[in-house]
């Protein structure tokens, strides 16, 4: 039932309504204004008329219809669904952090700016880059920032002929979409049988028209690109720049720095590697790191530390550096970075998310960072080995898994008609969120499985047992699997109807159509 259907005409939540204008002479109801009638709306917006308890019950119950990391194993490949420590949320929501206006004097934000500055330094270290901007609000915006910087770099050198971005066919869809948003055309290159970039194809695709290459390493196929040094040389020799898609950074955190691999620019999905919440689709945070030559182009603002307290205004309480000297923090602006690609958000990005990432990083410390990659990789390789031994078809059995790996359901489909999608839906009945399905598209009937480091051996073993049960069911009772899920709030949904007969908003008279 929708909240609108729980509405009761005339019901109000008086506790949340301001009583009247505080000001002398203000209207007593607060509803009469001096605004000309022609600018006012005549109708009332269609919002729920609910009591506070009605609304609290409704949304609490709705939340219970979700799978989440807090309730279920969620091995969604390429999404790094690891435990989101509760302390990160609690500490990012301290009242003073929440109350600060983005345009309030910087002197009143020295605490939050210190956290952001420290986070920049941490991300510089793990990425091996010379500079970091925290401003992009999601991975895709980080990609935009990265490719825009590549373009700004070539333009600043008067190198105008570079019109193409090279993208491997296994890349996330955001890569080609980003290149187009930055005014480039996309050249796609194939992957070889080992899951690596086809070097001959790369050489053929590279030339004076090449602005850069976007690469995810480890790739979306769940293997580390071993030829990265050769790739780096091909691109750089041609005058192009190398972009690192940090979607899979969790696999190499503290083990390999993208800067050391020769990348010029990187985005980091903090909602993956730094464990900020996915929130049912966002907000994310897509910090970008750059090598020396791209420093002038970083998106604004960037936080900088200065030795003395800020002049004048507001509270004077600046922080103290490690050795006790007074320090202050401020945002760098266009005056400091005149060649910047500019602002990507009205203010300063998803700061509340950045604070969560900062708390997480401080809790892990340097040793904890190394352990992230180690145990993410251990869990992936263990789960791959166990599924392989159980007779499932692993896409690259000759390779080490990174933090994720691919299993193909093609043999099962050929034998029983049960597809990867059927297996995924049946996993829901067994209490598991399914892996990513049908991506990357290079492997037929694929499941991309990423257990993450925060899951125990026991959970992984139980997942293998569930996969075996489903395989048995596929042979014995295929209809059971094809009809799955059976235990969710709804069964499989009619996506064709959803797209053909668009119903994107509730209408009072339309609610009987489908009920």
């Amino acid at each position: 039932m929708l909240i609108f259907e729980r509405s009761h005409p005339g019901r109000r939540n008086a506790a949340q309504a301001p009583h009247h204008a505080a000001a002398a002479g203000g209207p007593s109801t607060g509803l009469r204004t001096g605004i000309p009638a022609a600018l006012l709306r005549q109708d009332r917006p269609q919002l729920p008329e609910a009591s506070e308890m009605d609304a609290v019950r409704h949304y609490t119950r709705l939340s219970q219809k979700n799978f989440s990391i807090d309730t279920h194993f969620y091995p969604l490949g390429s999404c790094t669904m690891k435990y989101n420590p509760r302390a990160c949320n609690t500490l990012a929501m301290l009242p003073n952090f929440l109350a600060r206006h983005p345009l309030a004097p910087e002197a009143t934000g020295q605490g939050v700016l210190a956290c952001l500055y420290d986070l920049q330094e941490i991300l510089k270290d793990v990425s091996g880059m010379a500079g970091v901007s925290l401003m992009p609000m999601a991975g895709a915006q980080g990609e935009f920032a990265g490719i825009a910087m590549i373009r700004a770099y070539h333009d600043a050198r008067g190198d105008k002929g570079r019109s193409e971005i090279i993208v491997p066919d296994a890349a996330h869809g955001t890569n080609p979409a980003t290149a187009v948003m930055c005014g480039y055309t996309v050249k796609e290159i194939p992957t070889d049988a080992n899951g690596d970039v086809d070097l001959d194809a790369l050489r053929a695709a590279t030339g004076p028209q090449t602005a850069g290459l976007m690469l995810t390493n480890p790739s979306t196929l769940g293997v580390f690109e071993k030829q990265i040094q050769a790739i780096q040389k091909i691109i750089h020799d041609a005058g192009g720049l190398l972009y690192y898609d940090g979607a899979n950074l969790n696999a190499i955190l503290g083990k390999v720095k993208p800067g050391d691999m020769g990348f010029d620019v990187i985005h980091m999905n903090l909602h993956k590697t730094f464990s900020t919440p996915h929130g049912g689709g966002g907000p994310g945070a897509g910090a970008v790191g750059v090598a020396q030559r791209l420093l002038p182009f970083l998106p604004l603002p960037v936080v900088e530390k200065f030795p003395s307290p800020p002049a004048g205004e507001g509270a004077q309480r600046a922080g103290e550096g490690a050795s006790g000297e007074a320090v202050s923090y401020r945002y760098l602006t266009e005056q400091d970075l005149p060649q910047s690609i500019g602002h990507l958000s009205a203010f300063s990005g998803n700061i509340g998310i950045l604070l969560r990432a900062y708390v997480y990083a401080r809790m892990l410390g340097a040793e904890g960072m190394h352990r992230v990659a180690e145990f993410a990789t251990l869990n992936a390789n263990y789960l791959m080995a166990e599924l392989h031994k159980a007779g499932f078809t692993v896409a690259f059995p000759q390779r080490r898994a990174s933090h994720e790996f691919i299993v193909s359901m093609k043999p099962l489909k050929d034998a029983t008609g049960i597809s990867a999608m059927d297996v995924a839906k049946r996993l829901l009945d067994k209490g598991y969120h399914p892996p990513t399905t049908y991506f990357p598209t290079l492997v037929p009937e694929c499941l991309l499985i990423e257990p993450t480091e925060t899951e125990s051996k026991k959970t992984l073993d139980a997942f293998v047992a569930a996969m075996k049960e489903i395989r048995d069911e596929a042979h014995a009772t295929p209809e059971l699997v094809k009809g799955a899920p059976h235990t969710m709030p709804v069964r499989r949904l009619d996506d064709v109807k959803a797209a053909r007969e668009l119903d994107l908003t509730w209408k009072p008279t339309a609610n009987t159509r489908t009920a």
Partner: protein
Amino acid sequence: MPFIPHTEQDIQAMLASIGAKNIDALFDEIPAVLRSGKLTAIGDGLNEMQVTRLMQERAAQDVQPLNFIGAGAYEHHIPAAVWEIATRGEYYTAYTPYQAEASQGTLQTLYEYQTMIASLTGMDASNASLYDGASALAEAILMAVRAHKTSRRVLLPATVSPLYRSVARSIVKLQNIELVEIPFDIATGTTDLNALQQHVGSDIAALVIPQPNFFGALEDVDTLADWAHAQGALAIALVNPLTLALLKAPGQWGSPSPQSSPASGRGSEREVGQAGILSQDKNSQNQFSIPGADIAIGDGQPLGAPLSSGGPYFGFMCCKQALVRQMPGRIIGRTVDLDGKPGFTLTLQAREQHIRRAKATSNICSNQGLMVTAATIHMALLGSDGLRRTAAVSHANTQALAVQASGVPGVKRLFSAPHFHEVVLHLPGSSAKVLQSMAGQGIAGGFDLKPHYPQLGNAILVCATETKTNEDLQRYVAALRHALH
């Protein structure tokens, strides 16, 4: 090991299964020369007690002045239940709802959000959010250019937030889209209609119409929307959703002459949409015959997002039915399951990057889902009545502040147009120095317009929402008086 559950026994058993002698061997495909040493900038890990102490100390450095700044981020009361529920693990730690059957909570919440925001804006359809208002403006410009097909010029009034214009430029300039600034009338503080007339007959994809505009002033939206449509251009409404509890919805802007809207003339989808959906709602007959804005966007922050130094907030985007397939971002639709039971799912995914790749409407993937969840709960808790009261009290408080501040010698309101909940005050001394002095008195006195609009002289933009009491207003005036003394 923080957040890693493995025992030594587990590790050995797992390595034995893999056939590796130690964890390091799992990285043996990575060329040795690339392996990095110890991280140096991070230090040792802190336990929860230690990190709590650290963050409490940092938060204590952020002393909060009494805030009278708006300029795109507004201090409003947020019911306690909003974030209590939004941070429940089931909402907070769920992924994008690609597995619809296991995501009905998030999906239904987003569908309810789409309904609420489409109703506030008076538009046919909404997506499930973009990053923030400024990036939503950029996406709206790109969308308008796609929909218009022939023009790449968009008119962007100087009364649009300079922060938003800066973001829009950063994003759209790479696709060779020309943004043309339209000056404002220095007397009214609204878009200069005479200046706009100079663009009649020129090649225009869209006109951006802010309401209220950056100065808090109310634009003549009917005239502007009609003007855009008369040029064959799209009208993009940039609005504050809270104010729409009182102000005319973008879907109702302009005079009733449907043929003047470019969106209404394109394809049969609009007709299908109206016959199929709107005709069942007798209240929407008026909307049907009025062209209205083609795209409505803005920042959803006033609906339940804390100020948080600037984010996370969320961008909203609504549009006419005919433009739905040009919209970027995720969209939720209602459909039925195998048993005919209603349910919710991501729809029209063929627009998106994970399907269309280089041909997608945008590269956006993650949106601001949790902020939208909070906004939905916020709107449900306040209802239409609560939002109207919040908007009206904010308006009245700002009105009262403007009157009282104008009583300070030399201070005057700069613009004559009616305002919503922000006003521009002209000061008899340096705006930067006055604001600095007020900050020293514990008051964030407003946004200094001088760096962005030097022609206005010592002008500041001031906002008093429903959170301000009579005493707060008196404190403001006293601090202003002291600063100018």
